[in-house]
């Protein structure tokens, strides 16, 4: 029986090539898109999952803003962990990290710059269940000056030698520490928000730098540490959170401690001072919606086409019925055909996925793959596909098997008005989905170009930030002098327009920016609960990055206030309630135990972090410390070759003065743009999947019209014989589709308006949802549909009516 079904199904599919192609291809694209998106979502949802991770929470700070507490920094104090552990029995253990974006190591003559590492408490391996390959869990981080290397970092340093008990030098603010390798840990998976490549024992901090002992004292002053706690598995985390908030361990009315599951950090947390840029649950939700829309779209296509096609098969069904077929047998046969078709589509879709995966990884920037291991996570999706497959096959099957045999044999099957309504509904739904996706694409694209074209209050084109690590034991003042020499040498290069020194710059990460509170204003009020952000630069900085002064000017190099000067921005004035420049200009403010910071200027607001974050209240200090050397290049360095030769010359000047060092540079504008990277790839994904959805819908429409045109062939012939012109026939055939698109369009507007508004909430600066966005999407959908439909209807309209009437 099954063999018979199979044989007939295969013959049918190969005979009706257009039908089979549209169906199989449409389904395959639908399933492939679904799988691709789900792979991405699955990846995003798999962050920070390891054995026991469900009991690990991150401690973070809430800050008082007005009357309510809002999530503040992701970093906590060095007292936070120990206090929570001693006050709450539910907290079994804690680990603190002091994070290094990168660190310079020296081994013999070789100098390495290694990104991502931390000072960590010895409890690390009890809390993070990542394998330790060499060394003993209890001992590796217990002694000062111990270091645990990741497998690949160990490989890089020592090749295949056993690294245990070997020593390497690490540098921090020029201070060398000789560290002993006590362990090797497995590389941390990519799906981790905090990917340490080395861990240095926490106790090392105490004696490493001059300020180490002070920093090491337990205090509630500097929240520079990430703290993770391990809860007793029986703990109700929500109750504990409430207890932690209420107990106010720090006894500070302006801020409170809070906790969040480590597993939620990647998708739900976007606080200042995150370790790395996190994902976004909104994006995940949007992509998931797109995935389901496309899949359902391809099923609707399938249902619509098979229903239309089933009328052609009415005669066959009639014959089978009078030959003794039971209704159930006909249903099973029809289902069998649809499952066969779906299976072919699934296989094709897997092939498609395998082909486009490398390209897709390029767009998303993730290393996704089809692993057997991830199959269990895919089981619900697989079941969903299976369910949809059967559901999509069932409707045509039921319809087909319900035809009365006499009518079927006479070929008099007409769709009932109810059936027609269902099919119209399906088409409207398809258009609805298409228009919603179109609107989404337009809004995302518009928002990204809005962000990119927005004035940011500063000019960072052709500016590079030079930052190398100098391995030396020279004193700070000597080093500063050497930098001065370098600055003078670089200024002599013909392509260097300007040079300035800065700790941070527009587009830089949060790490070089401090947040602080408790500023003493010139009028004598101390603002305890108002946050401000601060970094330090040297006088030429403002000119180089073209930040405009509203009042006053940059620091005076030779003044008495040298080292105690600041520049503030508009937002700072606004937040502190200062209405005129006179209230603050050339007056002093106080913070950090120093009351003589002289305000030399007020700058116009600029965006330090791009337009995703709001404008920050800034206090920019004058300090002589050297961090980044910013260089503005002239037009001659704009070309690739010009740039390469410029960089070579800069590098040779650098190595002349600092022979033992690493050399690094970044383009400021590229770094600034990089914060939109995730949004851009989201936009790209949105565009690609929208195109695919349109393709599916258009293919379905094409298939559908090819049958309706056949059905109405006689009608068209009669009308033409009676004098209808080609345009009149075209209008007749196309006006239904225009009507349906109109209905879909009207439903699509509120849905997409609501959805895109949600998405835009993620941005501090948003483009408007203008009326033309909707109009453009509607007109595009209409044009696409009309083009698809007219292809067929035109052929029908120009056909000679004699042909169509003869065979009756």
């Amino acid at each position: 029986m099954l063999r018979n079904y199979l044989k007939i199904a295969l013959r049918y599919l190969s005979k009706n090539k257009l039908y089979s192609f549209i169906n199989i291809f449409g389904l395959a694209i639908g399933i492939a898109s679904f799988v691709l998106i789900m792979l991405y979502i699955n990846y995003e949802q798999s962050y920070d999952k390891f054995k026991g991770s469900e009991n690990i929470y991150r401690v973070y700070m809430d800050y008082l803003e007005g009357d309510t507490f809002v999530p503040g920094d992701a970093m906590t104090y060095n007292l936070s962990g120990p206090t929570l552990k001693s006050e709450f029995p539910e907290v079994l253990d804690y680990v603190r990290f002091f994070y290094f974006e990168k660190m310079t190591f020296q081994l013999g003559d070789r100098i390495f710059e290694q990104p991502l590492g931390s000072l960590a408490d010895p409890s690390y391996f009890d809390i993070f269940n990542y394998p330790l390959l060499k060394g003993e869990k209890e001992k590796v981080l217990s002694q000062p000056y111990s270091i645990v290397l990741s497998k690949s970092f160990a490989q890089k340093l020592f090749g295949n030698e056993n690294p245990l008990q070997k020593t390497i030098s690490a540098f921090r603010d020029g201070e060398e520490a000789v560290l002993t390798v006590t362990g090797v840990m497995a590389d941390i998976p990519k799906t981790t928000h905090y990917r340490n490549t080395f861990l240095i024992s926490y106790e090392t901090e105490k004696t490493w730098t001059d300020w180490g002992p002070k920093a090491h004292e337990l205090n509630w002053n500097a929240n520079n540490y990430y703290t993770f706690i391990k809860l007793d598995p029986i703990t109700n985390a929500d109750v504990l959170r409430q207890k932690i908030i209420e107990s106010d361990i720090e006894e500070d009315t302006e801020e409170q401690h809070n906790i969040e599951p480590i597993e939620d950090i990647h998708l739900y947390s976007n606080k200042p001072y995150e370790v790395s840029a996190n994902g976004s649950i909104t994006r995940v939700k949007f992509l998931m919606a797109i995935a389901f829309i496309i899949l359902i779209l391809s099923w609707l296509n399938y249902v619509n086409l098979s229903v239309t096609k089933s009328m052609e098969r009415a005669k066959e069904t009639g014959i089978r019925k009078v030959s003794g077929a039971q209704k159930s047998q006909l249903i099973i046969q029809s289902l069998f055909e649809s499952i066969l078709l779906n299976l072919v589509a699934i296989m094709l879709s897997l092939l498609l996925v395998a082909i486009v995966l490398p390209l897709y990884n390029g767009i998303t920037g993730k290393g996704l793959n089809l692993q057997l291991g991830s199959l269990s996570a895919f089981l619900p999706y697989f079941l969903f596909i299976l369910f949809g497959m059967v559901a999509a096959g069932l409707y045509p099957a039921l319809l087909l098997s319900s035809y009365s045999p006499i009518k079927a044999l006479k070929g008099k099957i007409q769709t009932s008005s109810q059936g027609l309504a269902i099919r119209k509904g399906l088409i409207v739904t398809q258009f609805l989905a298409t228009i919603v996706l179109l609107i989404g694409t337009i809004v995302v694209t518009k928002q990204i170009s809005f962000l990119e074209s927005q004035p940011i209050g500063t000019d960072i084109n052709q500016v590079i930030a030079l930052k190398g690590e100098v391995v030396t034991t020279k004193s700070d003042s000597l080093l500063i002098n050497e930098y001065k020499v370098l600055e003078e040498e670089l200024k002599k290069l013909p392509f260097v327009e300007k040079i300035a020194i800065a700790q941070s710059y527009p587009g830089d990460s949060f790490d070089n920016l401090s947040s602080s509170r408790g500023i003493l204003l010139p009028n004598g009020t101390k603002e305890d609960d108002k946050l401000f952000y601060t970094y330090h630069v040297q006088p030429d900085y403002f000119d180089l990055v073209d930040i405009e002064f509203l009042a006053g000017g940059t620091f005076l190099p030779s003044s008495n206030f040298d080292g105690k000067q600041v520049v503030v921005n508009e937002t700072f004035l606004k937040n502190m309630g200062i209405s005129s420049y006179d209230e603050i200009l050339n007056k002093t403010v106080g913070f950090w135990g120093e009351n003589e910071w002289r305000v030399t200027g007020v700058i116009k607001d600029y965006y330090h972090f791009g337009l995703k974050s709001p404008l920050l209240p800034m206090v920019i200090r004058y300090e002589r410390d050297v961090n980044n050397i910013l260089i503005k290049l002239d037009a001659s360095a704009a070309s690739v070759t010009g740039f390469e030769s410029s960089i070579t010359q800069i590098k040779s000047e650098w190595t002349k003065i600092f022979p033992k060092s690493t050399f690094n540079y970044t383009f400021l504008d590229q770094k600034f743009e990089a914060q939109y990277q995730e949004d851009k790839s989201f936009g790209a994904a949105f565009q690609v999947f929208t195109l695919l959805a349109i393709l599916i819908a258009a293919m379905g429409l094409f298939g559908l019209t090819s049958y309706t045109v056949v059905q109405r062939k006689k009608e068209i012939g009669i009308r033409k014989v009676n004098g209808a012109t080609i345009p009149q026939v075209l209008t007749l055939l196309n006006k239904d589709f225009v009507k349906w698109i109109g209905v879909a369009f009207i439903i699509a507007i509120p849905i997409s308006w609501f959805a895109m508004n949600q998405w835009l909430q993620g941005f501090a600066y948003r483009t408007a949802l203008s009326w033309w966005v909707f109009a453009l999407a509607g007109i595009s959908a209409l044009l696409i549909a009309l083009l698809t439909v007219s292809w067929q209807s035109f052929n029908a309209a120009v056909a000679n009516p004699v042909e169509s009437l003869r065979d009756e």
Partner: protein
Amino acid sequence: MLLQLRNIFKWVQQGGQRIFLLKDINLEVQEGEFISIMGPSGSGKSTLLNVIGMLDTFDEGEYDFLSESVHTLKEKYRSNLYKEYIGFVFQSYHLLDDLTVEENLEMPLLYKKIKSSERKALVADMLDRFNIVGKKDLFPTQLSGGQQQLVGVARALIGKPKLILADEPTGNLNSQQSEEIMQLFKKLNEEEGVTIIQVTHSEKNAEYGSRIINLLDGRKI
């Protein structure tokens, strides 16, 4: 007695008026009869045949088939009844274009859940009897009309029905092909005792039967 129709009426409503398709039909058919139904177009021949074949319902009257009262049966039992005992032959053959001759013959057996080996034997037997072994792998479109109808008759017979209903079986055939099909019917009726009811326009074909029923405007005359 194979079947009996008593006072059968069938009508459709058109503009508030009843149009009678069948009017007070009484008919008894014994096993082994060969009946021809004749009458002009629209006289209700095909409707009567469909009612007998239980493909169509009627509005009034009683119908017994093998002592089951069809008019009291539910749709499902009714269709089981015709599926078991009645074979249909159509004017336009109604073979499945996607299936070969052999597969077309096998099709009804599939629905009766007959084992594969037995199906093969029955099909081979039928091909042999109708002398179409050489054509078994051809598709219907590759056959002449007469040959297609031969396959149609063979398919109707393969389920060993008690009754064959043929609706103008030779309507699409030339005179020679018609002759052959009618000879075949006659042979089946005489040698194998198959009961046959056919609808026909042709006096000549009607003569093959043992009894002729004439209809006019839904009424027996």
